[in-house]
C-alpha cells in the first residue's frame, strides 16, 4: 500500500528506546505519586514530649488488656487521666462564649491562645506542643469524640493480628534469622533483647516529636506501610510458624 | 458497498440485507449487554441461581458449548497431525466455531464468578488439586491457541493479504499450524477431561461421583470422548445452517459425511464406556453411598426420561445413524443424527450440572427446582449473538470455505 513506504530516517531503535524509557520512568516515578496520597494526622502528636518530657513508659498507653488484646491507640478516657478537662460542657460553654456559638468552638484554634478556660488546661511548654494540645482538647476531648488517628500499620478487617502472640519475639531472634529478610537485616544493626515494635511500626517512634503524614493508597485505602500477606508469611515460615489461613484471617 | 472486502470470487447478500441481519444480532447483543451490566453492577443475585444451584444455566451453557466447540481441536488434530487431507475444506469453520465457543464460555465465566476483579487469582494462587484450576489454565491457554489459529484466517482477508508482511505472516503461521493444532489438542483434551473430573470428584454428590478407576481415567475420557463425538457434527450443523441461510453450497457433502463418520465412531466408543460407567455407577457407587438408582430421579424435570433420552435416543440412535454409511449418506439422516448427537451431549452436561445439585443428599432434605431467569437467558443469548456476529463477519469477509467458489460456479 501507498503509506507503507519505508521511512528510513528513524530506522533505528530510537523511538523504541524512547518509548520504553519514557513509560518506564513514568511508571516508576509518577505512578507511586498518583497511587498514594498523603493524609495528615488529626493533630501533631509528640512521643518525645510524653516519653522524655513526662517520663512515661510505652506500656502506659500501649498495653495488653486482661483479655490478651492490645490497646493500640489510647482512648480519650485514658488521655484524660492527665489531660483532665473536668466537665466538658463547661469548657464548651466557655469556648462558645468566645466564638459566639457552640457549633463553631473550633474557631478558637485560629488564635494562638485563650480563652483562659482553655489555657488553664494546657500542660505543654513548647509552642508547637501547645498548639497540638489545644487542638486535641477542643476538637476531641471537649466534644467527646475519639481521635480518628490514621494507623500507619493499618490492616483490613479480615486480618486478625495478635500482638500477644508476637510479644515475646525479640529483635535478637529476628536478627538471627537466616535468609533474605529485609526487616531482619535492618533490625540486626540495633539488635537487642528489647521490644520488637520497630519490626513493623514506624521506626523509633518514641524518639519522634512529629507525626508524619499517612500515605493512603487511593485504590485500596491501605497505608503504604501496610504489611502485605507475603511478608507475614515469610517471617512465619522463617520462624517455623504455621502459615495456615486461619492463623491470621477472620 | 463493501464488496471490495469480500473473499476472492465470492458473492454476498446486499448491504441492506446485511445491515438488517446485523441489526437483529445487535438487538440480541444489547439485551445481553444490559443484563450483564446489571449483573456486574448489582452482583449475580440478579440471576435465579441460589445456594443449591450455584452451578446452573451458565455452567450448563459453558460446558455444552465447550463440548460442541471441540470440533476445532479434534478436526485440527485429524487434519494437521493425522493428515486427513479432506478436512481442510471445513477446518476453517471448525476453528471459528471453536473460537466462538471458547471465548463465549470465558465471557460467561467472568460473569459467573462472584468477584470478576479477582479472576486472575486462579493463576497466582492456584490450588493444584482442584480440577477447576486445571480447567482455568487450559481454557485460557486454549483460547489463546484458538486466537492464534484464527489470526491467519483473518490475515488472509483479501485486502489485508495484499500487504507483503501480512501475507508472509499468514503463510508462516499456516506452516506452523500443526504445532498449534498439537498444543490445542493437548490443552483441549486436558481440560475436557478436567471438566469431567470436576464432577467426578464430588464425593458428596452421588449423581456425579465416581471413584477409583471410574474417576481417573474414566470420567476424564468420557468427557473428552463425548466432546469429540459431538464437536465435528456440530460444525457440520453450523455449516449446513449457513448453507441454508446463504443459499450457497459451502462444503461438499462428502466432507460432511466424513465428519459424521468420525463423530459416529467416536460416539460409539464413548457410548461403550459410558454404558459401562453407568452400570458401575448404578450397581456399585450408588449402593455404597446408600442410594438406589431410582432415587436419582424425581418428577418430570429430573425424570428418568432424561436419562434414557441421553443414552438411547440421543446416544445409541445417532451413533448407529452415523456409522452406517447407508444412513449417513442421506443428508436428512445425517443432520438428524447430528442434531440428536448434540442434544445428547447437552443433556449430559445439563444433568451433570443441575441434577447433580438438585439431588437431596441429606435424607431429610428435598428436591428443589431451578429455572433460569431473564438475565441468564439474556446473557446466554448474548453469547449466541456474539457467535452469530463472528460467523457473519467471517463468512462475509474471510475466505472461510475454500470450496465455495468451485461449488457455486
Amino acid at each position: 500500500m501507498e503509506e507503507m513506504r519505508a521511512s528510513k530516517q528513524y530506522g533505528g531503535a530510537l523511538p523504541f528506546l524512547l518509548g520504553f524509557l519514557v513509560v518506564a520512568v513514568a511508571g516508576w516515578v509518577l505512578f507511586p505519586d498518583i497511587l498514594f496520597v498523603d493524609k495528615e494526622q488529626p493533630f501533631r502528636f509528640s512521643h518525645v514530649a510524653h516519653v522524655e518530657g513526662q517520663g512515661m513508659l510505652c506500656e502506659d498507653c500501649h498495653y495488653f488488656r486482661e483479655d490478651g488484646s492490645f490497646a493500640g491507640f489510647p482512648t480519650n478516657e485514658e488521655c484524660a487521666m492527665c489531660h483532665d478537662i473536668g466537665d466538658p460542657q463547661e469548657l464548651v460553654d466557655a469556648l462558645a462564649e468566645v466564638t459566639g456559638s457552640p457549633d463553631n468552638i473550633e474557631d478558637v484554634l485560629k488564635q494562638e491562645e485563650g480563652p483562659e478556660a482553655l489555657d488553664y488546661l494546657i500542660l505543654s511548654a513548647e509552642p508547637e506542643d501547645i498548639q497540638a494540645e489545644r487542638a486535641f482538647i477542643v476538637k476531641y476531648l471537649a466534644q467527646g469524640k475519639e481521635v480518628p488517628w490514621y494507623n500507619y500499620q493499618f490492616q483490613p478487617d479480615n486480618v486478625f493480628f495478635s500482638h500477644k502472640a508476637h510479644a515475646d519475639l525479640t529483635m535478637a531472634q529476628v536478627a538471627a534469622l537466616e535468609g533474605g529478610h529485609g526487616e531482619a537485616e535492618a533490625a540486626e544493626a540495633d539488635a537487642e533483647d528489647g521490644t520488637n515494635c520497630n519490626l513493623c511500626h514506624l521506626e523509633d517512634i518514641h524518639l519522634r516529636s512529629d507525626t508524619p503524614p499517612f500515605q493512603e493508597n487511593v485504590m485500596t485505602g491501605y497505608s503504604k506501610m501496610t504489611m502485605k500477606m507475603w511478608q507475614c508469611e515469610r517471617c512465619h515460615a522463617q520462624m517455623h510458624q504455621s502459615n495456615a489461613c486461619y492463623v491470621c484471617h477472620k | 458497498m463493501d464488496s471490495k472486502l469480500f473473499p476472492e470470487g465470492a458473492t454476498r447478500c446486499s448491504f441492506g440485507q446485511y445491515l438488517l441481519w446485523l441489526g437483529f444480532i445487535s438487538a440480541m447483543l444489547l439485551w445481553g449487554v444490559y443484563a450483564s451490566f446489571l449483573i456486574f453492577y448489582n452482583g449475580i443475585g440478579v440471576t435465579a441461581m441460589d445456594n443449591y444451584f450455584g452451578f446452573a444455566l451458565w455452567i450448563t451453557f459453558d460446558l455444552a458449548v465447550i463440548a460442541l466447540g471441540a470440533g476445532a481441536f479434534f478436526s485440527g488434530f485429524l487434519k494437521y497431525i493425522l493428515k486427513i487431507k479432506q478436512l481442510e475444506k471445513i477446518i476453517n469453520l471448525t476453528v471459528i466455531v471453536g473460537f466462538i465457543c471458547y471465548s463465549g464460555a470465558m465471557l460467561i465465566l467472568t460473569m459467573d464468578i462472584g468477584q470478576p476483579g479477582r479472576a486472575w487469582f486462579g493463576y497466582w494462587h492456584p490450588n493444584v488439586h482442584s480440577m477447576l484450576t486445571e480447567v482455568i489454565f487450559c481454557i485460557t491457554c486454549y483460547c489463546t491457541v484458538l486466537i492464534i489459529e484464527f489470526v491467519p484466517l483473518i490475515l488472509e482477508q483479501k485486502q489485508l493479504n495484499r500487504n507483503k508482511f501480512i501475507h508472509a505472516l499468514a503463510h508462516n503461521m499456516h506452516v506452523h499450524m500443526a504445532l498449534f493444532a498439537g498444543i490445542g489438542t493437548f490443552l483441549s483434551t486436558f481440560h475436557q477431561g478436567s471438566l469431567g473430573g470436576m464432577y467426578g470428584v464430588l464425593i458428596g454428590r452421588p449423581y456425579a461421583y465416581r471413584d477409583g478407576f471410574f474417576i481417573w481415567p474414566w470420567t476424564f475420557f468420557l468427557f473428552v470422548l463425548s466432546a469429540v463425538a459431538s464437536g465435528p457434527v456440530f460444525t457440520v450443523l453450523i455449516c449446513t445452517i449457513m448453507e441454508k441461510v446463504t443459499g450457497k453450497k459451502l462444503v461438499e457433502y462428502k466432507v460432511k459425511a466424513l465428519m459424521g463418520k468420525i463423530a459416529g465412531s467416536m460416539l460409539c466408543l464413548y457410548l461403550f464406556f459410558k454404558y459401562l460407567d453407568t452400570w458401575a455407577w448404578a450397581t456399585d457407587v450408588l449402593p455404597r453411598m446408600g442410594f438406589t438408582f431410582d432415587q436419582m430421579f424425581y418428577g418430570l424435570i429430573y425424570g428418568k426420561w432424561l436419562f434414557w433420552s441421553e443414552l438411547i435416543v440421543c446416544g445409541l440412535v445417532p451413533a448407529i445413524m452415523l456409522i452406517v454409511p447407508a444412513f449417513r449418506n442421506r443428508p436428512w439422516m445425517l443432520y438428524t443424527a447430528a442434531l440428536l448427537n448434540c442434544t445428547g451431549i447437552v443433556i449430559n452436561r445439563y444433568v451433570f450440572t443441575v441434577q447433580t445439585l438438585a439431588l437431596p443428599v441429606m435424607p431429610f432434605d428435598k428436591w428443589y427446582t431451578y429455572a433460569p431467569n431473564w438475565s441468564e437467558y439474556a446473557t446466554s443469548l448474548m453469547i449466541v449473538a456474539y457467535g452469530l456476529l463472528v460467523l457473519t463477519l467471517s463468512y462475509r469477509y474471510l475466505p472461510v470455505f475454500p470450496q465455495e467458489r468451485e461449488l457455486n460456479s
Partner: protein
Amino acid sequence: MGLNRRAFIQFSVGGTLGLLVTPVIWKTLDDVSIWTQNWGWIPTLKKGVEERVPAVSKLCPSGCALRVETVGGEPYSTTGDEDNPLSKGGLCPICADAVPLLYSPTRVQGPMVRTGEGQYQPVSWDEAKKLLAEKLGAAGSSVAVISGDDTGSGNEVFSALLAELGSDDYYMMPSPQMAATRAWNGLMGGEGQIGYDIAGSDFVLFAGADALSSWGPTVSNMNAFAESHPAGEKAKSTYVYAGPARNHTSSVCDSWVPVHPEGMSAFLLGLAYNLITEGRYLESGDFAALRSLLASKYSPAQVEKLTGVSKKSLAELAGKLLRASAPVVVADYGCSPAVAAAGIIVNLLLGRMNTWGGMVALPEVEPVLGSALDRPTRFAKDLPADVASGAFAPKVCLIYDANPVYGLPQYGEKIAEKAEFTVAFSTFKDETAAVADLVLPAAHPFERYDDLVNPFGVANTTYVASSPVVKPSLDVMGAPQFALDLAAEMGLDLGFENFEEVLEAKAEAAEAAVGTVGSYSVGLGLPALSDADKTSGQLALYAYSQLHIGSASMATTPHNPTTIRDTELQGKQMFVRINSETAKANGLKAGSKVRLSANGVECQALVHVDEGVMPGVVAAPLGFGHTAWDEFSMGKGGNVYKLLTVSAGSGGSAWTGSAVTIAKM
C-alpha cells in the same frame, strides 16, 4: 522531526514493554483485587476494649437476663448470663437479636403528637409532659392504664400515678400470669404468686403450657429441662406435653398427649378424677362438691369425648403422676383461669403444694410505692369484658409496654375509640403507636433502668435489675421515669423522683420476700370448672406462639426472618397446619390457599399438612399479620389474634375453644 507511523508504532511497542517492567499493571491488578476486598460501601468493624455487661432485656414476654457484649462501649451482641439463675447462659431468639433492635428502623425517634389520621408532629419531652399533665388534669379520675409489662416495677409507678389521680382502672394485658393469678388468688382465694419448680421435679406435665418455647420464664424452663436431660446420660426426669399439636415444647418432651383445644380443663379434671379414684384427697370444704362435679361431668368416658384422650392413656398418665416422686403439672391454655384452676387442683391432689419439685406460692414482693396496687389486684381487671360492656371509657388512657391494637385486636382497636386521649409508651412504631394521640418513645431495654420481679412461673423469689448499657441514640426515655417526672409536674407525690431509686427499694423488698406462702381458703374454682364441658363441635383453632416470630407486643426482629421456616411463611403468606384427615375432610391439600374465619373476622393462609396436629384442629401461628413495624414483619401473614374467641368465664376472659371455619379460596 516528524512522527510517522512506523516511529509511532516503535514508540508504542517500546512503551508497552516499558510499561511491563514498571509496577503499573501489576500493582494495579493487585490493588484492584484488594479494592474488591475493601469496597467503600462495605461497613468496617469497630475496635476497642471488649466487655460483657450484665443487663435485662424485656423484649420477650418473660424477660431475659443476659450480658450485652460491647466493643469500645458500643453494644454488638447479647449472650446468656451464666451467673444469672434465670439465664444460666441461655437466651431466647428475640433477646438474641436485642442489640440490632437498638438501631431498628422502626424505633420511635422522639415524642410525637397526633395531628390527624396517621399524621404526627414531633414535640419535645417537656411539651409532651405539659400536654399530658394538662389532659390528665382535665380528665380527673377518668384515667386508665393498660400495661403489658408482666414483670417490672414500672407497673408500680404507673399504678401509683393512677391512684394519685383517683382511679383504679389498671388493666394488664392477658397472660398466663393473669390466668393463674385469677384462678389462685381470685377463684381459690390463695395467697402468693404461683410458680413451678420444674428443675426439682422428676415428672413434668405441661398441660397446654408451651413452656419450653413461649410460656413462662422460657429460658429458665429450658435450663431445667436441659439439666434433667444430660447429654449422653439417662434422663433424670420425664417431660410430657399435652396439647392439640406438636410444637417446639413437644418435640423435646419424652411424650406427647394430644388433647383437643377445647378440652384442656376437662383433660386435667379427668386426671383429677383418676387421682381421686386412686384415693387422693383434699383438705377442703369443697372437696365433696369437686368429687360430685367430676363424677357427673368428667368421668373418663366423658373426658375421652371432650378431649380425644382415651380412658386408657388418661389412667396411665394419672398412674405415672402418682408413681413419680416429685411430679408437677404446669397448666395453661388460652390464658384461661379455669384451666389454671384445674391444673392447680391436680397439683393439690398430688400433694405438690409448696414442695420441692412441685407447685409453689411465692410471697408477694411488697410494693414500694405506697399507693400502688399489689400484684394480684393489678391482674383483677378484665379489659376485654370492660371494653365489651362499655365500662372502659377513660378520658385518658396510658398504654405502657403493650401493643393491644395488635395483641388484643378485637378490643385493642376499640381502645383508641373509647378513650378520648390515648398515650402509647412505645419503643417501636407498633400498631398501638400508630393510633395513639401521643406517642412517647420508651427507651430500649439497654438504654434504661428496668427490672424483673419474679417472672411468672419461677420457683424462687427472683429479682434482677439492670442499668443502661449505652446512652440512647434517640430522643427517648424510660417510661416509668417519665411517669415520675409527670407526677412531679402535676404536683403529685409518688414518694420517688427517680426510677433508679424505685429499683433499689424494690431490690430490698424482694430480699425480704423469701420462702413460700400459700394458704387457700374458699372454693376450688368450681363454678369456673363446671362449664368446661362444652365443645363447639366444629373445627377448633389452636393458636400457638413462637418467639422467633414474635410475641403479642414484639414483631419479628431483623435476624429472625431467616429462622422462620418455609413451611411457616412463604413470601407474604403464612401457613396453618392441619392433619391429612382434616385436609381430606375439607377438600384441601398441601399448599391450598384457605380463608380461616371466626367471629366474623378472616385470615388468609396456605395449608401445611402436618401429621403432628390432631384431626379436627387447625394449628395457626400467632405473631404474623403486622400492620405497622418494618419490612421484617409488616404485611406478612395474618393476625391470628383476631380469630381468638373470648369466652367470658366466671374467672375472667379466656381464649379457649375458638371455633373456626376453613374454606378453600
